[in-house]
């Protein structure tokens, strides 16, 4: 339960940063927090109390492993997160280059 609450708090912190912060970089940091929170949660889903890490060192060893699939999935999610963060950062840099500001509320040429 503790982990779930932690996850929830992290998600809320991430969303809060994304929604209320006006600085591009802080928004991106908000995304990082949100992403980590969800990855954290995903990794926890496979957790079993008292189980081993899912590494097989011999052919017929102990069978009490935690679920390895979430970890694989989280790894994939991290890769995707890497791509999005990189892309977002490059947008932020380019936006700064064009607008000379990091304030998203001042970047509002598209409206109506």
């Amino acid at each position: 339960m503790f982990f779930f609450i932690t996850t929830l708090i992290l998600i809320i912190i991430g969303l809060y940063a994304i929604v209320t912060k006006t600085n591009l970089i802080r928004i991106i940091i908000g995304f990082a927090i949100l992403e980590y929170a969800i990855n954290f949660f995903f990794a926890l889903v496979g957790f079993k109390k008292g189980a081993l890490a899912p590494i097989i060192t011999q052919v017929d060893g102990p069978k009490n492993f935690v679920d390895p699939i979430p970890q694989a999935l989280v790894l994939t999610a991290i890769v995707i997160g890497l791509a999005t963060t990189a892309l977002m950062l490059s947008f932020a840099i380019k936006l700064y280059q064009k607008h000379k500001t990091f304030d998203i509320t001042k970047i509002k040429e598209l409206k109506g």
Partner: protein
Amino acid sequence: MNLLPLFFALPLAGAFLIPILSKIWRGFSDLIANSITTILLFLSFYSLNLFEEGEVIIYKMGGWPPPLGITMVYDHLSALIVISIAIVVFAASIFSIRYLEHFTGRVKFYTLFMLITAGMMGVAITGDIFNLFVFVEIASISSYALVAFGIEKEELEAAFKYMVMGEIASLFLLFAIALLYGRASTLNMADLANTLSVAGRDQLFWFVAAILLFSFAIKSALFPFHSWLPDAHPSAPAPVSAILSGIFVKVLGVYALIRLSFNVFGLTPQNSPIFFHILIFLGLVSVFFGGIIASRQRDYKRLLAYSTIAQIGFIMVGIGIGNFWAIAGGLFHILAHAITKSLLFLTSGAVVYATGKRDLEELAGLGKTMGITAWSYRLATLSLSGLPPLVGFFPKLFIIIGACQAKLYWLAILLAILSVFTLAYLLKIIRKVYFTTKEVSTPETPFSMRLSMLFLVILMILFGFGFQGLLNSLIIPATKVLLNGTGYGRAILGG
């Protein structure tokens, strides 16, 4: 040999072949991209023959049996989406050949183009929910990059905003997947369907449903979640706008939503009326606001982008009504709108190519010099506003029939009225851009652009006249797939 993986593997391979081979000769990028989209078009129509073996075609990636490995599932609903994607992508890639003269990064463009195709195709045929997420992300990230492709002020701004909202949606999708996995310990959609239908519907079930709806509502730009779309779609290069508006939002938003809600969650209007009422409500609000804000626009492409919101609303209303004809109408509208809206965006590309302008007040009298473009636009307008015999007529008819059958007469009346609104805002462009007796001297668009527009026009007319065949071979089976509900799970896993 089963050709199913080719749908996403070919464009994926193309995406990585293009940067290497175009170092040798620049023309390879055009060549590869266009030949791949052509192959996809043929494959997608050819794949209809596969259904002789059965209603559902299951492809086990790497030979792993369904609940363990990643499965690809190809049924009529997927076929409908795949065909729509193939058509739009084919037209857009032909159009791109000359359109990209204005841009520098032709190679990067085609790489991203292939990636977005691969992502959409993957979403359409995957049978694994995490795989769905991965393909959604492949398509989304390429779309963010494509929106920003012009790297001017507006494009970057649009791309950033789009990305912020799109990523919120993607992360919530991941969150929902995590919750689902925590509950059912499986990622296979069929297995998930079986597990969920056995277990009851508790708080967690609805929590996940709400998160998924939120996520896909953003992806499909339903009304309060739409605000990225009018920025993002016009900012992209015209062929990309055609893809984004024509098919992208429908694959990532509508298709994924209906696949999950009908086939995995087993929601029906009978057992979960609130969910479907929300869909109807969101759809109606989108139709209304999309329509009226569209008629206020001065920008050619922005008007079309708002129109997309309205038309997605139509699809959603059809899905939300949830009986046979309404769903058939919604699904048919996916195809019809894919053709017409991409055609409309391609005409905008032709206008931009010829004049360099998008502002309706500055454009005038192009009807004389750009005959094919003007006629394509007019026909697409008539189709989108639902005039027979063009293809756009039937979806709206079916949706209205569905509304009447569900005894939602007010809805039927509203939809009929709002259809006329469609006419109102699309006619604005005809009036401003193609009419007026003012003499201008813009050249007609290049041959390849005209070819791609003609291709879509011909399809529009062909599907309009041959709607019966289309209905029987594609739409009705696809509707049956949805109405089959969680029978989807049993069909794939057996038992």
